[in-house]
């Protein structure tokens, strides 16, 4: 293991023209776009979509899953977000986009077990076709899209991380998502509308 200084020096050299090579995934939505609609099966067997939330002020849509250690680190924070914001009109909607053939821990049956164990008070829906993850441009778990109720449907207000502190590490903590929800509820502009965090790649179906 070598020092952080060495690595920072190395990373500093990595500027310049970049070419992206990923599995040709669509870009998905941007902040300000209309939120793509969907209807997917919840762990209780009911079908849940954005229509289900038409009497709310917004929705915290979180692409997450059972298996990912980063998603697990954030599980209790997602529960706390729902506790804090559902009463204010912005509930959590959790959605698992992983292919259980690639990641067996993320099967619909195991989603039910997780929701029961953790006592999820929000829907945990299964994006079996992965079309919803593709339409939003979700790439990792957890990956958050904050949606605001519009005249018709919802608009995307914020895309990215829950906070900047997955490990509860020492150092400053920036609660990006809470800040965004607070501003949205106040009717104020959101200062930081897109953020990034480390996470597990979404387990796409193999062709």
């Amino acid at each position: 293991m070598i020092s952080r200084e060495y690595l920072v020096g190395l990373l500093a050299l990595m500027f310049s023209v970049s070419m992206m090579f990923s599995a040709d995934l669509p870009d998905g939505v941007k902040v300000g776009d209309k939120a793509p609609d969907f209807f997917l099966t919840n762990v209780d067997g009911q079908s849940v979509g954005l229509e289900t939330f038409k009497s709310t002020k917004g929705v915290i849509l979180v692409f997450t899953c059972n298996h990912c250690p980063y998603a697990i680190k954030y599980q209790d924070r997602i529960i706390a977000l729902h506790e804090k914001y559902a009463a204010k009109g912005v509930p959590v909607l959790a959605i698992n986009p992983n292919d259980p053939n690639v990641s067996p821990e993320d099967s619909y049956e195991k989603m039910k077990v997780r929701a029961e164990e953790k006592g999820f008070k929000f829907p945990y829906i299964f994006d079996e076709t992965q079309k919803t993850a593709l339409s939003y441009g979700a790439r990792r778990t957890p990956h958050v899209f904050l949606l605001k109720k519009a005249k018709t449907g919802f608009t995307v207000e914020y895309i990215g991380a829950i906070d900047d502190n997955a490990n509860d590490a020492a150092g400053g903590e920036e609660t990006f998502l809470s800040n965004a929800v607070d501003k949205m509820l106040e009717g104020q502009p959101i200062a930081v509308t897109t953020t990034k965090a480390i996470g597990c790649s979404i387990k796409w179906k193999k062709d």
Partner: protein
Amino acid sequence: MSSDTIYVVNFWATWCKPCIEELPSFDALEKSTRNQPVKIIMVSLDDPKVLQTKVQPFVKKLGYSMEFVLLNESKPNEWINRIDSTWSGAIPATLLFDGRLGRKEFHENDFTKDDLQKTVSNFRMLNND
């Protein structure tokens, strides 16, 4: 850091299953490019708290020859974009970097042995134009 060297920088973690599965691809690349100006650096994104208890024993057990480091940075929203603006933050991910031309390629996917060999050799050929 040598300017005529191609750097292959892989971002992984002990908790990341597809990352662990593709480690042999990087070992094979290291073996096949040993006497060439190719430098492979494996950057662990594990929690620094588990460096000694988890990461070091894991790396030691692998017995690979390439360099392993741990990124001890607490602000992912800042450093992810510094590595590549197209990176979502999902791992595994791999950066190819040419110090001489300041050219880079970023790959947000995992690699089979063959794909990695091909990708790196294409990148090197482009740099010799």
